[in-house]
């Protein structure tokens, strides 16, 4: 029973936040607003979703921000020439960046923190190269033709939400139902035991980072679609909120414990705290301070520490 409650603490925390903001300003309570807020959260979620896998194996990916920006540049630069193929190309670019970080980390045995940080410098340069150091407009007609899956509405629900839901479902399946997901959890919990069971752990790690890069790139593509252009700085200031989303959702930064829906809820918590402050009219000077303290409080509430011997 207690374990059950522990599992759903992030959801409860989110619900309390929503009720709090709604009680203060009832205009917050509208289906349309909820849909909007959730749709706006999706780019953050997409960025965080892939990293969730990396954090679950006990690593970290600090290159996602640069990767998303680079992907937006690739998309914007090649959409006119390649059409729909620019999308897989952008995602492929992200996947390669993720893979590069993973190779540096696993083959050269460099902590992922530094490996991905260093790779993100390379990716940033690549972004500048693809965009020729400019932000590139995506003409509305091209956007309408190729990117309508990411913007607009179907059945009254914003497309960002559909994308987010589909990604969440696919990733949840990947994490919960496939051998890959099983091994991700195992590596995070006790890597040596997984190695000793004859599993090619490096391959799983490479896959996790590649996935992280690919999803960051997808986030970049969706961002570019929403904003109608690509820019080498498009996803700036996304990195730390994305990682905060994962941890606020209750995924342990040390690995082994976590899930994709947690990241979804975590991203919503981050978003609701921010938007909530605007709704409640918290002074703009106090916002960052309140945000910081709520993040800490959220982790204190949502994190399941029962399985951890020491907290570092």
């Amino acid at each position, binding site marked *: 029973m207690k374990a059950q409650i522990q599992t759903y603490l992030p959801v409860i925390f989110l619900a309390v936040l929503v009720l709090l903001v709604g009680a*203060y*300003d*009832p*205009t*917050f309570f*509208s289906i349309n*607003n909820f849909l*909007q*807020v959730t749709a*706006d959260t999706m*780019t*953050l979620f997409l960025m965080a979703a892939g990293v969730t896998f990396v954090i679950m194996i006990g690593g970290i990916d600090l290159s996602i921000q640069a990767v998303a920006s680079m992907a937006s540049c690739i998309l914007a630069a090649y959409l006119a020439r390649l059409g729909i193929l620019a999308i897989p190309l952008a995602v492929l670019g992200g996947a390669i960046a993720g893979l590069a970080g993973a190779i540096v980390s696993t083959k050269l045995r460099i902590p992922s923190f530094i490996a991905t940080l260093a790779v993100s410098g390379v990716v940033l340069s690549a972004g*500048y190269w693809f*965009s020729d*150091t*400019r*932000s590139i*407009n995506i*003409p509305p007609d091209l956007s309408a033709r190729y990117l309508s899956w990411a913007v607009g509405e179907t059945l009254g629900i914003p497309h960002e939400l559909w994308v987010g839901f589909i990604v969440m479902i696919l990733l949840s399946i990947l994490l919960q139902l496939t051998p890959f997901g099983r091994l991700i959890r195992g590596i995070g919990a006790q890597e040596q035991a997984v190695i000793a069971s004859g599993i090619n752990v490096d391959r799983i790690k490479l896959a996790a980072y590649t996935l992280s890069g690919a999803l960051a790139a997808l986030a970049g593509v969706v*961002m*570019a679609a*929403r*904003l*109608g*252009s*690509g*820019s*080498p*700085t*498009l*996803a*700036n*200031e*996304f990195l730390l*909120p994305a990682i905060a989303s994962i941890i606020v959702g209750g995924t342990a930064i040390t690995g082994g414990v976590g899930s994709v829906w947690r990241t979804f809820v975590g991203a919503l918590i981050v*978003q609701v705290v*921010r*938007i909530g402050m*605007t*709704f*409640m*009219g*918290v*002074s*703009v*000077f*106090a*916002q*960052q*301070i*309140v945000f910081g*303290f709520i993040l800490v409080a959220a982790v204190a509430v949502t994190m399941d520490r029962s399985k951890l011997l020491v907290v570092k």
Partner: protein
Amino acid sequence: MAKLIPSLEAALVNRRSLLKGIAGIGAAGVVGSAFPRPAIAQEATWTLANSLRSLANPYHATFAKGGEEFAKSIGAKYETLVTEGNSEKGISDIKALLQRTGGKLIVNVDPNDSPDARVIVEEVKKAGGFVVTQWNKPDDLHPWDFDPNYIAHMSFDGVPNAEAIANELFKAFGGEGGIVALGGILSNVPAIERKLGLDNAIAKTNGKVKLLDFQPADWNEQKAFDITQAWVTRFGDQIKGVFAANDGMGMGALEALRQNGLAGTVPVVGIDGIDAAVSAVEAGEFAGTVAWDPFWTGSMGLAIPYAHVTGKIDITKEPKEHREFYGTGIIVTKANAAEFKSNPPKTDFNDLWGKVTGQIQYRS
């Protein structure tokens, strides 16, 4: 600027009381002092808001001040929104405010990145609010395509202003020799424009002035400091002047020069007209800076839409040079620095177009 100081000090007092609240740890303290009052459903009057990157820089702080003063003058509610450099946050905040005010929102936005402008304009139009954008927008996004909700886009023309201030720099060292230049984030529109202005100025000297090196310092003072240090090593006394695409980086460069005993010897120019830079101009360490008028942009970006809302003007009938226009940059040099400081530009909220200097030019 001096006139601003009393009101700023008043603001500081408020902030101190706010800090007390924080020190009391208070979530309770913060919440108590920071939440004005619950807004119940539809608000009868228009809410005004400025959206900007961060209150941590002087330009935007004054920008916000302008909005606040204007709102006070008409007795409207006012909010400041900050993006913290995160495009999605900026957009979500505006959406939240549109939701909260039921669309009765006038918002003056300095978009975090030019792509954001389109989304913001679309959202505001959908909700029935009014918007003015500043500095950044895609070239193909025009106010008249979103009548009447997209009131205007205002900017300062980086090219001629950068060119003018570059010429001040050249003048300061005698018009012949090498300079180094610090740029903003490579892909930012103002950074690009200012670089272009510098290039134009150099080209016009017919080879007398040489650009020794150009490095982007990403608008960051610290980076500018370190790069300038390295330049001193690399070029030594070949450096006759330092061009910085904004005053913050200029200050970083100046401090690096000071460490090497070159402050005042090697002139620096910046752009923005922040207090520190104007003082440096007075002290002879800066050869000049371009003062934008953030108080004007912060207030006029709200005053113009408000004039439309209240029926004083019909924005759809205004000419294009009132829909996409440049403001006036003031070149501050030693000659006028003291005057500028003691008698800063004034803003008359009723003079909507007085400081407009022409329709925006698209160069690419």
